[in-house]
């Protein structure tokens, strides 16, 4: 009751703060843990940026909830038998926020900008060699786009749809300044960009002429009809404050509640917790070039000494499923075979450590407090290894420093986390590769490397799965890393927010959400 009253008072007081008090009622307010970097898709970006951009821009294809790819601006995708030609017939009736109709020329224009070096598009490399190479983008007619590839790739469409690539979003020329630099996105998405007050909030306005697909929302695909006039992403860096803001009624969606708050939040009247497994990966890296850890027995000893299920339960309070496989449990490629989690075996761990010539010297594990999970993993690991007589020393670094250590491979062990990888190949690629050229890679194993590259070319699902499973088995042999779990996204909404769903990527989706506040 008191809460309700205070909430009203606060709504009022916040009303003062709003640019347009009248609209306060129809504004959906979402917590943003840090300001976005820019509105330039896939260029100067982070997870928040992606999460904002996908409300405004759409690509030819989009991700479903299970990370498979569905057509978005394209009506469908026709792939030639040799897998080198992709044809995208455009969906008719799609308009940009400035009212212009979508044409193949716009697609070509956007693609040209993405592929330019000076644009610094995050995924340029992938489509210019590492995944495949786009040799040409053709526009036979205003409603058709054709892309030609150098070599077949299983990852091509996924790459186009990747959120960190800004979904290769198609934007209108007006998005650019005269000098070709990025001004603001003019897209086809369900919302258009409103006011962006740096460090405070970004506002989106409903795009009335949005051409929605029929059916249900599904990931970034499907029906994305906007129901609220205005969306305001409020920047609240501090978790405690964000939680407070939710309870005080200053925000309508807390997309990233901390697991430790869930019990309390669930208990509160009207609060709903939406949980779904994400595609990221919490992991412990080991430096296989380290004199001590270069001995596989030592690495196995460490893996055996860890009680992964216990650790994951402690960290996520049962929210996430422990998994030694890098492919997220939410992915369609996560097979039963990959669910195997070797049991803890202290005796074996001790023996192996002995054989590896370990005599209790301290092993330093790098971690940070920036991401609580990393820190907690390190602390708990230290605790568990102690029971196997392995002496772990925490080296708590500030995030940027840890990142540098990571990219240079300067560590013995490191508690780390990989952001969402939507294609299973990438889930391995992120830590697999030759240390000589990429010191950040933890797993340097030529034959695995070969398998990985096959998996990227291979388009047949069954054969890919086979490859992944054998790589997984090899991973349990070599243990260059100990995969732990994919974190769970827990979004919390009060009663008046309806139609909201959380999904694999932690940034929320404002379409399909209604406000029943009266």
């Amino acid at each position, binding site marked *: 009751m008191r809460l309700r009253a205070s909430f009203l008072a606060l709504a009022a007081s916040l009303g003062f703060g709003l640019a347009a008090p009248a609209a306060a009622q129809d504004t959906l307010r979402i917590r943003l843990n840090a300001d976005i970097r820019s509105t330039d898709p896939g260029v100067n970006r982070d997870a928040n940026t992606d999460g904002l951009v996908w409300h405004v821009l759409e690509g030819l294809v989009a991700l479903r909830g299970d990370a498979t790819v569905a057509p978005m601006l394209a009506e469908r995708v026709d792939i030639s038998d040799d897998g080198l030609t992709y044809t995208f017939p455009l969906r008719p009736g799609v308009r940009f926020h400035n009212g212009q109709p979508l044409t193949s020329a716009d697609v070509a224009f956007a693609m040209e900008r993405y592929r330019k070096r000076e644009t610094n598009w995050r995924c340029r490399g992938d489509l210019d060699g590492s995944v495949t190479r786009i040799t040409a983008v053709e526009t036979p007619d205003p409603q058709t786009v054709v892309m030609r590839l150098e070599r077949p790739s299983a990852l091509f469409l996924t790459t186009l749809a990747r959120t960190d690539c800004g979904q290769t979003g198609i934007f209108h020329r007006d998005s650019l300044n005269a000098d070709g630099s990025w001004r603001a996105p003019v897209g086809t998405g369900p919302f258009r960009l409103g006011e962006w007050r740096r460090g405070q909030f970004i506002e989106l306005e409903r795009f009335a002429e949005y051409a929605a697909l029929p059916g249900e929302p599904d990931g970034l695909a499907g029906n994305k009809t906007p129901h609220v006039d205005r969306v305001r992403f409020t920047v609240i860096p501090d978790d405690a404050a964000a939680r407070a803001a939710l309870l005080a009624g200053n925000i309508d969606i807390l997309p990233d509640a901390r697991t430790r708050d869930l019990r309390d939040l669930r208990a509160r009247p009207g609060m709903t917790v939406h949980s779904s497994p994400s595609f990221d990966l919490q992991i412990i890296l080991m430096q296989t070039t380290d004199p001590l850890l270069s001995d596989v027995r030592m690495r196995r000893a460490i893996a055996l000494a860890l009680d992964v299920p216990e650790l994951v339960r402690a960290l996520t309070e049962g929210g996430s499923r422990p998994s030694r496989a890098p492919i997220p449990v939410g992915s369609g490629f996560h097979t039963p075979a990959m669910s195997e989690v070797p049991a803890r075996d202290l005796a074996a761990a001790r023996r192996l450590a002995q054989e590896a010539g370990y005599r209790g010297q301290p092993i330093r594990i790098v971690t940070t*407090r920036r991401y609580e999970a990393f820190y*907690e993993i390190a602390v*708990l690991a*230290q605790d568990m290894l102690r029971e196997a007589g392995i002496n772990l020393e*925490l080296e708590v*670094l*500030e995030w940027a420093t840890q990142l540098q250590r990571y990219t240079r491979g300067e560590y013995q062990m490191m508690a780390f986390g990989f952001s969402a990888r939507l294609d299973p190949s990438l889930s391995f690629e992120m830590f697999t590769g030759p240390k000589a050229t990429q010191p950040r890679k933890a797993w340097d194993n030529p034959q695995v490397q070969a398998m990985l590259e096959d998996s990227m070319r291979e388009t047949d699902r069954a054969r890919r799965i086979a490859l992944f499973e054998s790589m997984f088995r090899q991973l349990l042999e070599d243990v260059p890393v100990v995969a732990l779990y994919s974190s769970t996204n827990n979004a919390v909404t009060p009663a008046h927010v309806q139609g909201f769903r959380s999904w694999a990527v932690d940034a929320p989706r404002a379409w399909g959400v209604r406000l029943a506040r009266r």
Partner: protein
Amino acid sequence: MRLRPNLLIGGTLLGFVFVVAATALVWTPYDPVRTNLRRRLVPPSQDYWLGTDEFGRDVASRLMEGAVTSLTVAASTVCVALVLGMAIGLAGGFLRGWTDRILGAVNDTLLAFPGILLALGLLAVLGPSRWGIVLALGLAYAPSVARVVRGTVLSIREREFVEASRALGNSELYTLLRHVLPHTAAPVTVLATSLFGWVILSESALSFLGLGVPPPAATWGNMLASARPFMQDAPILSIAPGVMIATCLLGVNLLGDALRDLLDPRDGA
């Protein structure tokens, strides 16, 4: 006068903190860094006087451990600040002229320099250790010492007994050390006490921003910081270290006042 209560209360409070720290050196109820997943966020009970934190570590033990860390950090920082500040202040105040101006510029630079950046820099250079903090805060606070010392020196050097010392044929250096230096003792002692307090504050502030003495070592500051998420569920986690800091500071401040009264030159004359 209020001198006696100051001394009494201040002494008791600070004494208490020191006793806690001293005990922690030889005994704590539990290993302050030993985690226990089955006992996270346990409310206070007779086996966990102040309950446990999010890793199931005993808060009481960490508090005691924290006393040691905070006090040692504070003490060593004050030493650093004093040594640096005294040197700068004495040189500047006694030599005057260009030396003074240059030192002045250096001083201002340090003053205009937020401790947090220094801390980050030194931490990064020295690697994560409490000594980074000590050095950083030491540097950050040296100027205020220098200011006080310089001021005192400037006023003392005008007093006749300094001239008298010259008249006796004593060298400048001797005069500085024998007749001027001792007079900085009083103000510096007083300053040192307040410094002690400031350092404890700054250390906890830095820890609060994630730049303090690196965990898992317990300091009141990083206990407060990590307790923050549980303000509602386990308020004791934030209250306990907060109270400890406040106690310590109150003790220091009161003691400082008492010293100020004791060492007041007016009582001398």
